[in-house]
């Protein structure tokens, strides 16, 4: 059954990103997949409240604000998902007793907003120069009523789907899988599968998301390398 926007089942929407667009935060990025679009601004390492202070590592705090309406428990849920995903990727031991604050503002939500939030956070952290063990790329997919698995579902597709799956992978993990490694050997950093699905559906969606995460990572890599090249061609002095 062809998709409303005539995309292939394993085709993600057009990706678009801007780095360093906000000037008051230490690092910022806008990430959009189709009409789903998210801003992310990162402060860090900055001063931390005495109560939350950890003596051997930086505290990671995530604040998510929705596109419309008052923020509620849904946003606390996304905040805890993003914090969990980056808790280990950020090398917090290098800046003990400080705070790394990730502020996410959803611009528009047309499906797979969690994945866009994770990707925007990765780019904002890199733009802020926060030490990262690895970059994280996320993708989501949905199993429709007729059993077909489609990648990067729009809001409409996700609402009518039997189950929606979101995965995030670390860059090195994707590299290993990319070079022909069996998908079993990869380890996702974040998994959220909800709805009514079988283990086979889960595996199918796992592979689909792994491949589209590869494409997202490649896109992010070229975007960041482009910015660095622009900045550094005058530093060869």
């Amino acid at each position, binding site marked *: 059954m062809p998709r409303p926007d005539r995309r292939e089942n394993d085709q993600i929407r057009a990706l678009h990103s801007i780095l360093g667009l906000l000037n008051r935060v230490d690092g910022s990025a806008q990430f959009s997949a189709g009409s789903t679009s998210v801003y992310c601004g990162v402060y860090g390492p900055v001063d931390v409240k005495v109560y939350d202070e950890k003596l051997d590592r930086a505290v990671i705090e995530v604040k998510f604000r929705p596109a419309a309406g*008052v*923020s*509620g*428990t849904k946003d*606390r849920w996304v905040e805890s998902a993003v914090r969990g995903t980056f808790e280990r990727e950020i090398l917090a031991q290098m800046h003990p007793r400080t705070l790394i604050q990730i502020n996410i503002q959803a611009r528009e939500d047309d499906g797979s907003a969690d994945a866009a939030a994770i990707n925007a956070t990765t780019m904002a952290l890199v733009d802020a120069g926060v030490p990262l063990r690895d970059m994280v790329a996320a993708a989501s997919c949905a199993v429709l009523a007729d059993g077909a698995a489609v990648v990067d579902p729009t809001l409409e597709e996700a609402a009518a789907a039997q189950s929606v799956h979101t995965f995030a992978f670390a860059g090195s993990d994707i590299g290993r899988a990319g070079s022909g490694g069996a998908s079993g050997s990869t380890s996702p950093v974040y998994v959220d599968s909800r709805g009514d699905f079988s283990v086979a559906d889960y595996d199918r969606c796992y592979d689909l998301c792994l491949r589209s995460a590869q494409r997202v990572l490649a896109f992010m890599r070229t975007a960041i390398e482009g910015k660095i090249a622009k900045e550094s061609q005058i530093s060869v002095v």
Partner: protein
Amino acid sequence: MSANIFDRRRVNGPPRSVEPLYTDEGDVKPFTNGGRADGRSLDQLRPIFIKTGPLAVQPTFSPTAPSGSAYYEQGKIRISCAVYGPRQGRKSNPRMGSFDCDFQYAPFSCSWKRRPHIKGADEKEIALILEQAMAPAIRLEAYPKACIDAFVTVIESDGKFATISAAINCISAALADAGIELYDIVAACSMSLNASQWVSDCNQAEEDVSQCSLFVSRMPSADEITYLLQQGKTMPDQTDRAVQTCSNSCARVYAVLSRYLQASMEQPAS
């Protein structure tokens, strides 16, 4: 129509919801044929069940576990209480320790409309009553600059005054379980006046139809009353009689509490 206030930190339901009008006649009316609906005599208390300490074995030290806890049942009333401390208090005074109490009804605990999550004025008032009733019994001078916190949650309540006295008994058990230094165990009991007859330990139905309710919390060994609250009109002699019989029931509750606590020490928590 009672409006549910929007709470940003919880999942919210519809803005307005109300209890349906119940057409069936519900349970039996109290005091209809002289005696009480559940067949108790006028000064008979409801059966009391107490369980202190962790339910399953606590193998190693856990920094987040309470130092003492108690689960208390009196008839349909069910209350759970946990005691933390002595620990660093927010407001601490160097000579004496401080004792804070926190009281909360579970949203489903009352027979009528669901209680909102945010604490109402009556819950704050009861928390103060519990604090004032228990503080005289605690040897606060043994805990300078530290503070002892008790948290009480009512799972099911049946009679407002009966629930307050049950909460006091529950905190006493929890404090004893926590090994906090006490002058004595505080026992409490409530009574209601119905057609110029004092009835002990009334449930919600009986309390609704009674003219006056009263509860006493008492330290039997030194025969000191730590808290006395009466709500409703009585003649002075009626109140004297009530306080007298209530003190005797407190002694009976005290006996039950002591027997349980001694038994709990003989065979350690399963």
